[in-house]
């Protein structure tokens, strides 16, 4: 719901006064809406991050997270190898609830926005993190 509200806020079109040049080919009303639609989609595109960029950055955050603490009892190189866009925190990476919170905090730092706790609770895989961040306009 928060995402929807944020989305609607960004979808609002700015109202600008049109120049008063008279162009016989340009039906005033049609020209106005055509230009507005163009500006509208540029604005929207500029706000959301590209999903493949988000994927790379999320995977890197988690890989670096795994590297920092090799004392989890098994080969950290393997663990880093298993950090893929489809990896599940618990079943693939052996992360626990404390790790999950730490990863969410690391993602907040990387993408410069706050993830509320009720949303953070649901992020238990890399793909969920990617989906959430890609659909959040405040992510940088």
């Amino acid at each position, binding site marked *: 719901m928060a995402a929807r509200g944020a989305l609607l806020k960004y979808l609002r079109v700015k109202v600008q006064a049109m120049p008063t040049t008279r162009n016989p080919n340009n039906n005033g009303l049609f020209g106005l809406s055509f230009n507005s639609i163009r500006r509208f989609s540029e604005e929207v595109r500029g706000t959301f991050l590209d999903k493949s960029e988000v994927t790379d950055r999320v995977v890197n955050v988690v890989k670096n*997270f795994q590297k*920092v*603490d090799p*004392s*989890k*009892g*098994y080969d950290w190189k*393997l663990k880093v190898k*298993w950090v893929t866009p489809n990896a599940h925190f618990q*079943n*693939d*990476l*052996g992360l*626990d*609830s*404390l790790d999950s*919170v*730490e990863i969410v*905090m*690391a993602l907040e730092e990387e993408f410069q926005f706050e993830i509320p*706790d*009720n949303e953070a*609770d649901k992020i238990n895989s890399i793909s969920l993190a990617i989906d959430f961040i890609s659909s959040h306009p405040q992510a940088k």
Partner: protein
Amino acid sequence: MFSFIQRMRSFQRNFSVSPSFPLLPLQLPSPMETHVWFVLPDEFKSVSLLNQYMELLSPCEKENVLTMRGDQLQKRALLSRTLVRTTIARYQINNHVVDPRSLKFKKNVHGKPELVWESDDGQCPSPLHFNISHTSSLIACGVTVNSPIGIDVEEKQRKIKNDILAFARRLFSVYEVEHLSAISDSEVQRQEFVKLWILKEAYVKALGRGFSAAPFKTFTIRMKDATNSGASEVVVESSDHPVSLTNNWQFGLFELASSHYAAVCMERDKTSDVAMRVPMRLTVRKTIPFVEDICISGTDAVVPIAGLIKQV
């Protein structure tokens, strides 16, 4: 490792693998008593023993084990289910010998695992309660009778990658953040953080209503100053719930096997007077199911830290 085991299984059916050391029957825990059983995954290297354990699991549990990625995580998942089944099977009720394979489990409406108890007059809630917690190096199972229980363990050396106070401010209550901020030594602060974390987890797990029912920020765990007896009491206070409810919960915090902190939370015995501070009776055993059980209560492998604990 497990693809090898799956090939072995077809051979194993021809040899009846019987446990070399049967599960010895035990008396049930009394009121306000917790039995904690734990395994150390590093002690389990025998493929045939692990294969034996695999045979105890339900088809669903076996599938869950095999979806884990890699030997280590599969072993951990296997040992967790084995520990739960073999631990519960030890407690004979009505003098029936229980086959660990026969135990049935379900999840309560909030997702907390429970024992399905089939009594003669149809199903009723199981008198045996259990809860499990694991790290990569230790898996613990706590068992009580007629009292919801939550248990959480964590390595003493667990490093926090983020700034501890930033982490605490995010998740802990105002009082808890203040308590941590007041600690100047960063190592002591880290230890206190880990202890608070497992106490809070144990409480939420004991409540059994899921994390959303008791978000960490909405309750405070406090360790009251040590009394004359030397034990500091652990209390929980909740901004959401009245005192009459939070008084119901008793905590025990102790060091386990020199390597871990363990927190147990159980509901107070309703028949006893709440004003009388009855200690939590605690028995701790290390086990290799079907191979050996070692009682370590009262040794230096169990060191009480907070909460009224009486080792039996």
